[in-house]
Structure formats: C-alpha cells, structure tokens
C-alpha cells in the first residue's frame, strides 16, 4: 500500500519549489512513466504527490535570444508540431515522431522524459547533440533560485540525475543552430510505434566546405545513461566525410559503447548496430 498522504497542485513556480523544500515529494506531469512504474512497484510514491501541470512558467515553446526554450510541460506532440522546433530543430522532431504512440505523445512531457532519465529516452539523444541545457529551479532560502546545467552532465545512471530532490526541472534551452548545421536521428526499434530503443543514434555538426566542426554524437540504450560519444566525435571533428572517415568513425563508435544483454538485444548486436547505423547516418549526411 502507498504512503501517499497529500496531493498538491500548485499554480505558481514559487509555490511548487517551496513545497519541494522538504524533498519528500513525487512530481507528476504527464504521468506516462510515473503511472505504469508506480503500478509495477518500481517507483514508490512519496508522502506528497505534486501535480505541476497548473504552473504557467513551465509551459510554452519560445525563442529567447539565440536559444529556443521549451517549457518542461511541453508535450511531445506540442514539440513535434511547433513551428520553431520544426524550423530549427528537425532532429528533435524526428525523435518525437518515434516516441511511443500518439496517445502517450499527447500526455508525456519533455520534462518528464528528461527526469525519467532512461538510457533509451527518445528525446534525450537529440537534446545531447543539440547542446541543450536543463533549467532548474529551487528555493534554497526564501527566494526562487534558477540555474542551467548542460544536459551532457545531467544524467548519472538509469533513472538518476544531478537534480536534487529540492529542484524542479522547468524547461530546456537549446541554442539555435547556425548555417551549415546538419543533424540526424536514428531509432532502432522493431516496430513503428510503442517500442523501446534497442539503440538510438544522434548526430549533429556544422559543415563548412565539406569539413565537419563542432561534431556531436550521442547514443541511447548502450550505457547506463544516454551517452555522448566523444571518441566518435573526435574521429569526425575537422574532417571531410569520405569513406575512410566514415568507417573509422563507425569503428570508433562500436568500440566506445559498452552495452548490455537484455530482452531487446544482446550487447554484440547493439555494438554491430551502432557500427552499421552510425555508418549509414554518416553516409546519408555525405550523400
């Protein structure tokens, strides 16, 4: 039986982070992970269940200077359909399109996907290659405190992040890519919807005169967290995308991941797919 004693639905960010001070709070947004996981006994409700869906500061998708800010409560569907995202962040749209099913996309939020911190989380791979930052809010004293953390340092393990129990993810900030930016996403699942990635790959770079700069590569479902693939990035940084570079990068990719065997695939197959599909994505970019 649950220890749940209190249900809160704050209508402002201040109220919400104030409630978080004690730390003994389970946060509910879309509920698409929380509900099945609590029913399966993998998540135990804390004393307070806090529904954050009525907090206006957590909503919206806006252009703020050179960044696109996506509020934590933005649903996967909203993101996928938003003109700003479609114009500037096609790789995120691609990942959203492979996210669960329509029903779940209508309810599930990007903040939830980030905080669930699954190594196979579909939006996390594009966020990693887009150099996204996670916005956090808390109330250490009597005043609201907000700061950002690069998403590449945010995840610490399956379901684990650097967010403290007193903090709330309020949104994510993504620099608007410049000219020459290319990006790709690939999800390896066995069916078109409602599938957990066997592996996923994200790729982004600025290409000028055929040379790749600021290369970002990320892999999902091959490590305890979504993974920035630094060795693969190095194999590509400053290079032309010729056949030898592509093969070298694919091999670097295979060598730097260390996946596990589970019900979806063996580690061997995952490494093979990282190699083959990194290669295919790079070939697609060079074509």
């Amino acid at each position, binding site marked *: *039986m649950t220890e749940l004693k209190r249900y809160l639905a704050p209508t402002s960010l201040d109220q919400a982070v104030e409630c978080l001070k004690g730390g003994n709070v389970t946060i509910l947004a879309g509920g698409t992970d929380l509900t099945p996981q609590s029913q399966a006994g993998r998540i135990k409700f804390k004393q307070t269940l806090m529904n954050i869906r009525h907090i206006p500061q957590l909503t919206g998708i806006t252009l703020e200077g050179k960044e696109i800010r996506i509020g934590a409560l933005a649903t996967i569907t909203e993101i996928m359909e938003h003109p700003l995202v479609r114009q500037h962040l096609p790789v995120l749209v691609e990942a959203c399109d492979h996210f669960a099913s329509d029903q779940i996309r209508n309810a599930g939020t990007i903040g939830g996907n980030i905080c669930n911190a699954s190594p196979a989380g579909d939006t996390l791979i594009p966020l990693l290659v887009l150099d996204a930052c996670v916005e956090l809010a808390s109330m250490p004293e009597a005043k609201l405190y907000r700061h950002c953390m690069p998403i590449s340092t945010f995840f610490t393990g399956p379901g684990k992040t650097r967010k403290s129990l007193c903090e709330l993810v309020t949104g994510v900030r993504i620099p608007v890519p410049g000219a020459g930016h290319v990006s790709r996403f690939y999800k*390896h699942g*066995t*069916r*078109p*919807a*409602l*599938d*957990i990635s*066997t592996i996923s790959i994200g790729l982004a770079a600025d290409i000028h005169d055929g040379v790749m700069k600021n290369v970002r590569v990320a892999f999902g479902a091959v490590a305890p967290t979504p993974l920035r693939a630094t060795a693969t990035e190095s194999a590509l940084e400053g290079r032309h995308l010729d056949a030898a570079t592509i093969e070298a990068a694919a091999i670097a990719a295979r060598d730097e991941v260390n996946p596990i065997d589970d*019900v*979806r*695939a*063996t580690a*061997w*197959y995952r490494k*093979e*797919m990282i190699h*083959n*599909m990194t290669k*295919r994505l790079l070939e697609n970019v060079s074509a």
Partner: protein
Amino acid sequence: MTVAEKKHRVIEPDSLIGKRIPKMDAPDKASGRTRYIHDINLPGQLHGRILRSARIHALIKSIDTSAARALPGVHVVITAADIPDQRPIGVAKDHFPLKVGRVRSERDEIAAVAAESEEIAEAALKLIKVEYEDLPVIGNPEDSIKPGAVLIHPEPHGADGSHLHLKQGTSIAHRGKADNVAMRFDYSHGDVVQAEAESDVVIEDSFKLHYVTHCCMGVSGMIAEFDSAGNVLMYSNTQVPFLHKREFAEYLNIDPARIRIIQPPIGGGFGSKLDIYPFEVICLFLARAAKRPVKMLFTREEEFLASPTRQPVLLTLRSGCKKDGTLTFRQVHTLHDNGAYTSWGATTPFVMMQTFSSLYRVPNCDYHTAAVYTNNPYAGSFRGYGNLQATFAIEQHMDMLAEAIGMDPLEFRMKNAQDAGEVTGQGMSFKSCGFKDCIKSAASRSDFSRKFAENHANQKKPGNIKRGIGMASMLHVGGGAKIYPSDGCGTILKMDDFANVTLITGASEIGQGSETVLSQLVCEELGLPISAVTVVNNDTAITPWDVGVHASRTTFIAGNSAIGAAKKAKSKILAVAAKKFDCTEADLDLRGGFVIRADSGEALVELSKLLRNLHFQDKAELVMTTFYYEPPSVHQDKGFKGDVSAAYAWGNQVVEVEVDTDTGFIKLLKVTGAHDVGRVLNRLGIEGQIEGGVVMGQGYAFTEDLMIEDGKMKNPNFRDYKLVTAPEIPEMDIAFIESMDGEGPQGAKGVGEAPAICMAAAAANAIANATGVRLFELPFTPEKVYRALHGQTPKRYWKPWKAE
C-alpha cells in the same frame, strides 16, 4: 396496386451464400455495448485472487495464512490443506488446482483469497507467508530427458521424506511418474529404411520452435455462484462448455446436472480456453466456501504468466526424394516442452503427424514425439494445434529438396500434391481437394516463379536490401475431428408467429462469426432475411450438446446441424402449405418471407400468416424442430490411422519480404494466399478470419517471443512481448478455392485455423530466397536474422531421442 395484382407477386430467387454479411455481434462490439465477463457483477459478489509461487521448482515447507485471514474484508483464504477433496485436473490428471507440497513452475497456485474488493484480496495475498525449499530447475526439455534428471512428478512425499498419503488414485498427481516423459506418440506407414535406400537425395535438419501465447484481448476470468440447493452457476469463457460441465462436476464431487455454464461474449479464444485451468476450479472452491458469488479476473501480467502457450518444439526431420521429384519418405522426431503439467495441447502430435504423413504424397513416413515435463509454463492448445510447427519444417524441406535436385519449388510441390479421391498412408480420405488449385492460384497471382528466379540471381549482388519470395502449403482438418465419443452438435429451432427464428445451438461463438454463418444457413433454407434470426448459444441449461469450439469444426458441424433443423421446419411448413393450396410439397418453396410456387416464384402466402394460421386453430401447432448432426468421420485406430475428419482443408500462401542485411530487419511486403474452403459462406467473415490468421502467423514468424529462462518468464507484458501492430500488417491478396465439399454445409469446409499455419514456413523460404541463408529457428527477429546472415548462428543438430 389492385388486389388482383398483389396475388401474382413474384419473388425472385436470391441467396445469402457467399455474400458479405457483417457479423451479428459487430455493432455492439464496435460501440462498446457488449457485456463481457469483465462487465458482469453479481449482487453480493466477492473478488478472488490467487497467490502464485515465488519459486520455479521447490518444496512448500509451510504456508501461514493467519494474517491474511485476519485482514478486514477477507472472507475466505484457502490452500490445498483446506480442500481435502481436491481432485487432480488436466488431461493427464497430473496437478491439483491448489498445489500440494510442491511447486513446479512460476505460475503455480499456492493459496487463494476471496474478499470484498480486488484491492483487499491483493493485500491479503501479500500477507500470506510461504516457506520454500528450492529444487533444481529443469529449464529445457533436453535436460529433462537426461539420465538422472530431477523428476518433475516424483511419488508425492512430504518435505520430511514421509509419504503424503494422498487420497488413493491412479493419477500422476497421486502416484507420481518415474520419468519426465508426459506423453509419447509413435506413428508410421510404409518402410522408411527401404525408401531411404531408394532415394536420390536425402536431407536432415533440426528445427527449433519457440514459445508464443494467445494474447487474448479479454483477460481470463470467471464468476462462480452456488445456490442454496448446491447448484452451481458459472459465467465462464470456456470453448467447450459441455465437456467442462462434466469435468467441473468431477472436481466438485457433485452431479454434472447441478452445473450450469453461461458463456458471456469472450475477448478471444484461439484454443486457449480448451482446458480447465486451476483458476477456474479455485474460483469454484472460493465460492463454495464463501457461500457468495466470487469473481476472478486475471491481470494482464497474470494472463501472460498463467495462460497456456503454444508448444515449443525441437524437431529433426529427415526427408528424401528421387531425381524426378517424387517424394520418397519423411522421418521425424520431435521433443515437446510440455511444461510442468499436461494440457490437451500435449496432443498436438495428432495434428502434426497428419501433416507429416499426408501433406503431399508421402509413401513412407515414420513419426515420433515425446512431450516431456520441465519447470516451464505448461503449453496448451493454440490455433493450428501443432500444424505451424510441423509445416515450418516440412515446407522448408520441400524447398531444400527441390533445390537439391535442381527443380523449381513450385513444380516440385505440384508433382507431389494430392488430388480428390486419394487416401493417404494415414487413412485420410480426400473427398474434396483443391490443393493443386491453391498452389497454382497463389503462385500465379504473386508471379512466384519469375520473382523467385530474379531474387535468387540478386542474392550475391551488392546492396543491403534483398527481396525474397517463398511459399508454403497446408493441410488441416476441415470437417471436425473425431477425438471424443461424439464429434456432433445439436440444434433446436423454433419459429414464432411472425416468422422469426430462434436458433438454439450448442456451438459457442468465440468471435469466429459462427452466429452469423449459422443464421445464414438457416435463412437460406427458410427463405428469410438474416434479421429474422435470434441465436441462443451460451447456456448449457438451454442449448443442446456440442463437443466444443476446436478443430475448425463449428461451421461444418454446427452448420450441418442447423441446416438439419431448418430443413425439418421447412418440410413441416411446406406440408401445411401444400394442404392449404392443394398441391404437393415439391411444388412449393420458401423465399423472401413467403411460401411461393417453386416454378414461377409466385408468392402464395406470407410465411408469418401461415404460421399464425397453424398456431391459432383447433389443432394448434407450433413449428419447433431439433436436429443432431454427427459427421461421418471415424476414430483413429491404435496406430493413429483413420479418416478422422469428414473433410480436409487446403491452402497455400506466398510471402514476399525485404531483408535489410545491415540490421536484420525484415519488411513483410505481401501475402498472397489461396485457401480451399469448400465454399465461401460469409465472404466478409471469411476474409476477416483469413486476415486475422495471417497476422497471427506473422506474429509467430517475426515478432512474438515469450522468453522463458530457467522457468522464469522475462517479458510478461505487451511492451516486450511484441504483437504485430497495424502498420506492420502487409498487403494481402487472398483467393478462395471452392471445391464444394459433398458433406459440408452448402459445400463449405472449416477454415478457422488454416490461415495461421503457412506463414512462418513461407517466410523462412522467402528469407532463403532473398539471402541464400536458411533459418531453422523462430522467431525471425532482427537480431536472429542478422546473426544468421553474419555466420553467427551455429547450425543446431538435435539427435533424435528414443526412450530406453
């Protein structure tokens, strides 16, 4: 219109046969009005839940239910100790509903609770303390038959070594079993040794078939209630109410007359409801003890854990042929993972041996199966009943033999396919047989030969996308199967004063569309629209006996029974009308709700009026008829020979795939099928049944995989157990071969199981055509395919096992 003109109204001939008729239950199902067992709640009802084993194989040292009993809202807690008159259940009588002294699989039932809510019942289960002593686990059938293997059903002794002194009996549950072999089947015709010597080509391969389960959308459930006189009313999802009535009576130690089974609409059967399972008997025990109605519904996880599965099979097939393409022999050994207990599904070799002995002309055949106990979930019956497994092996060998002698696989099949009039080595007599037409139709519509040659030529060319085409054929019973003393079905038909028909049939509707087809057949005889029929088919206190829904038998058997009752009604009506119009019965017919002149179609009298005249007169009479149909099939002899079905169904399916050699992904492009169904009765219904079967076969071939490791199920959920989803379903082009079976109702034969049978075999042949690599193990998941394509799948050889 004048009175004179009206007199000469002519009714044109019309027929319902072959039309596209929506299923009678469809509007309610589509609009959410259907009341499934899940929607039924009785006043005073309690909720039952079962405590299942926390171990795979263990002795039960103690069970403490005191805390559960003390929980407010709990009415009854039972363990085996509380039911001293428990009788063993199952086809081999090898387990008790509540386990005694020992658990043998993850699903095993230890205790049960009836409480005022599901939540309280669930909470009570958590309060039950069980102490176990673990035993070694047998996780696969090969280990089960090794000398010295732990016995799954030893003579029952308590944990301290003392004999349990169970109630005397001869069942396995009482006396144990000295080895782990649950069932054996040995069949042969001809002389395979001689035949092999005369063969030009002989091949031998081992095949491995995996666990899948039915995944009925409606989870299992039951409501049981005892009245004050001790009579039992059960709301049950069974497919075989009349046989189960008798069995339940035995388990409750009461007269079968006291048992009444009502079958609410069910959310899927597919064979899964052919056995009585522990939960049903336990629900009865709870209701008996609580003196209240008890409802028990599975959770989805429980549905995975505690429902039957298809038989996992290890199979070694040796086949031979001559250079001219004549098949010479088949020799096959199979090892079936029975799981911890034995269900009806253990008798799948009945069907498998028919396919080995009689799919194509096989002069010599030698077949052996051992179904052995393990600590895995116990396998049951599932649409196709062993035929998917057998066909998977045979149809791959058909391609391989053809390749070995350099013959086109289509030509090779045509050369060995049977014609009407043939009797096989197993004694099956093919009175109607559209086999060759099926093969020809599927091949020509899919352009098989051209594509087969082209794909073969493309195998070695560069590029990671390879196309393949493959075919497989099937043979299945299509006129019932005489397994029980009777394979019959009864019908009661009554007509009311408005010429509406109530068709009371023993045949259960389990979603297959039997209500609609039976109504069509009745209306065809009585010249009525389908809206004139009400079907009553779900209450053993009302409906006449039927052996149950299995063996693709309902349209054939219940259809003939319904026609029989309708014909009797018709002849009574025509006799009355003949008298009234002073002519012979042969001069008259029924059409469009009228009695008509047979030659001109002239309407003589409204049927409803005639019926009222008959009713409201001095010698009042009603039209009520009964009929019992028993098919002219025979029981097999001790050597499994005999014409067990009144008709046989044939089919051929061609599968086209695209293989991505970089990932192992397979895109199923198209399925072209041709099925000899005797005759199409309801075109809409049969198309739906074929399409559904193809998708079920697709799931078996490509996506579904119930992963069991050392007795533990790793994916009891729809996230990781992958049913085919809508976008994955391929284009289908299905044709029907109408061989007009002489015994079938309006010429029809059974087709329920047929469409699922060929898919995996045809897919394997298509993958081989695309890549040159042959896969001997299911399912064809991306990783399995990728491994095989990259030489990472060592070829398995299972050495046929013979008992000492």
